[in-house]
């Protein structure tokens, strides 16, 4: 069973669906304080404290972490924001 989507939903699908998702990566660096990185993940992405800490530790121990997934333009905005905060961030296709 299915139902017809509204016009807006259909348009969204047309625009978004063919696009492979992109990800924003934050890379470990020797400068940024763990408390600051966790604060950035909470204040910018709105993550709850536990999730922000988990991502921060992932960056610290694994060298990088995916902190956001979505369309390319949105990931570019996130990367620019991370550079504003002084974090080392990049974006790439999710399947790269």
């Amino acid at each position: 069973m299915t139902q017809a989507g509204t016009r807006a939903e259909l348009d969204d699908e047309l625009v978004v669906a063919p696009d492979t998702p992109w990800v924003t990566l934050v890379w470990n660096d020797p400068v940024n304080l763990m408390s600051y990185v966790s604060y950035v993940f909470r204040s910018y992405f709105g993550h709850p404290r536990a999730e922000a800490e988990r991502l921060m530790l992932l960056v610290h121990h694994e060298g990088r972490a995916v902190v956001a997934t979505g369309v390319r333009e949105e990931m570019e905005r996130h990367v620019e924001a991370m550079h504003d905060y002084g974090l080392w961030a990049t974006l790439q296709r999710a399947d790269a």
Partner: protein
Amino acid sequence: MSGARRLRGGRIRVDLTADERELLARLTEQAPAVLASGPADPAVRRLLPDAYRGDDEAAEEFRRFTQEGLVERKLAGAAAIGDAVRGGTIELDPGAALVWVKALTDLRIIIATRLGIENDGEEGLPDPALRGMYDWLGYLQEAVVRAIDR
């Protein structure tokens, strides 16, 4: 004792000694020269890193659209600290406190690259004066983050 604390009403009070104010004034004054020095300077490469790894064209395109704004905001942040430390009592609203922690990060990044610190736990070049500044900036940044974030 220098440090930062949250006042009732949410403003952040930053207490600094005269020497510390002088140090921050001198460091923030140098930000424009560093940011103007271009990608040959490792500090600039770290402050404005490639947004795309292994895709120079996309990284260049990203720079074209973002670099001017990023540099402008980083310079404005450094200038805001410089102005504040040349003034009287420092009390920051939440927006100003955010500008401070970002600008303190930029200063720490610049000093870390001058010290040659590239990996976690590295001491870098034996330059006690620079190292002392680096550690103190970390202490101050931590204090401001804690005051914002408690």
